[in-house]
């Protein structure tokens, strides 16, 4: 191989350098990088040694926190099951309207469990209805059958305008459509397939959850 060949190959490789057009770093950025680097402790804490230096108090506080969290959780579960009379949904001044709201942001983006009669039967509000109107931020339904809750003629579902599109998508509310809808004690709609367009399958789930 001649020197000429080598030089040619060198030149060709260098021409392909992807960093050849990389502009020089901003000096302020470099200064900040150096500063950040030097502000790091010289001792490293790793997974292996990272917890050795924690005081017993830290562990005590952590244990206490765990106990409190578990206690609150158990209290919530027990209370939820023992409530004989489900809390009535928030009522408007007009007794023939049940006001519900869309689920909060978290529920709309949360993962779903498969709809089941067990969970459904815990809900204080459940009905079979037809969408009468969809206006800005408000869906109104005519109820044909109440599975649970104090019967009213109409149900409104309110959602902040930013969330209404998501709500419509989650339940697929369409004007004139027939729906099975359930809501929790806070009057929040259950999504994730619990509240959905009427189907035989979903109707039998509601029948199972709320045997008449």
């Amino acid at each position, binding site marked *: *191989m001649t020197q000429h*060949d*080598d030089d040619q*190959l*060198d030149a*060709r*490789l*260098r*021409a*392909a*350098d*992807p*960093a*050849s*057009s*990389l502009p*020089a*770093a901003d000096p302020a950025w*470099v200064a900040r*990088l*150096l500063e*950040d*680097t*030097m502000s*790091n402790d*010289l001792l*490293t804490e790793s997974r292996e040694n990272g917890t050795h230096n924690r005081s017993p108090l830290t562990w005590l506080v952590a244990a206490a926190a765990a106990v409190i969290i578990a206690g609150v959780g158990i209290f919530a579960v027990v209370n939820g099951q023992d409530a004989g009379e489900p809390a009535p949904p928030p009522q408007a001044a007009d007794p023939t309207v049940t006001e519900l709201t869309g689920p909060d942001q978290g529920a709309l983006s949360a993962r779903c469990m498969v709809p089941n009669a067990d969970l459904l039967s815990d809900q204080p509000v459940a009905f079979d209805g037809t969408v009468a109107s969809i206006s800005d931020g408000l869906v109104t339904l005519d109820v044909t059958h109440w599975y649970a809750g104090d019967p009213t003629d109409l149900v409104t579902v309110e959602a902040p305008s930013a969330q209404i599109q998501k709500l419509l998508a989650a339940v697929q509310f369409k004007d004139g459509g027939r729906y099975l809808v359930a809501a929790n004690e806070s009057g929040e709609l259950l999504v994730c397939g619990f509240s959905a367009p009427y189907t035989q399958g979903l109707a039998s789930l509601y029948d199972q959850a709320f045997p008449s």
Partner: protein
Amino acid sequence: MRSVSIDERQARFEELAPGLIEPLRRYLARRTDPVTADDVLADTMLVCWRRLDDVPDEALPWAYGVARNCLANVERGGRRQQRLAAKIAVVDPPVESTPGPGERDGALAEALDALRTEDAELLRLWAWEQLAPGEIATVLGITANAASIRVHRAREKLREQLRKVEAPAGHEESREGRNR
């Protein structure tokens, strides 16, 4: 570890580091995406700061070696995500990524890809970082002699690959029939 005051340490690092940052930035820009490059540069500088007493007089090749390891660590972690991304990309292919500056030497890129990873890396260190075999040896943790031989062989292989890549593209094959 030698005990030096924190001020002395900072002074030494401030003297050393600015000369490393620009070459390391380029090293990383050639081998990964900009976001990863910034992350790995910060990791690399942190290692240099913590191991300041180990940094040799010829600091740059040593620092390249550190950057190489830091990048390998990050890529090991990212490989699973990449596999997932590749699956998604098959379903929904992204717009062809923009090639580098100027006219991209597709044949060269293809030939480099066809080489073993180690051979391609030797050639990049040689041509792009413009390191001498002795310095390449420091980066890769091999002897200078081995680096020298491997660079030579890698060049041969690259030439070979280039011939293969470019042959079907209609170039008159003057070496046809020659025994290789």
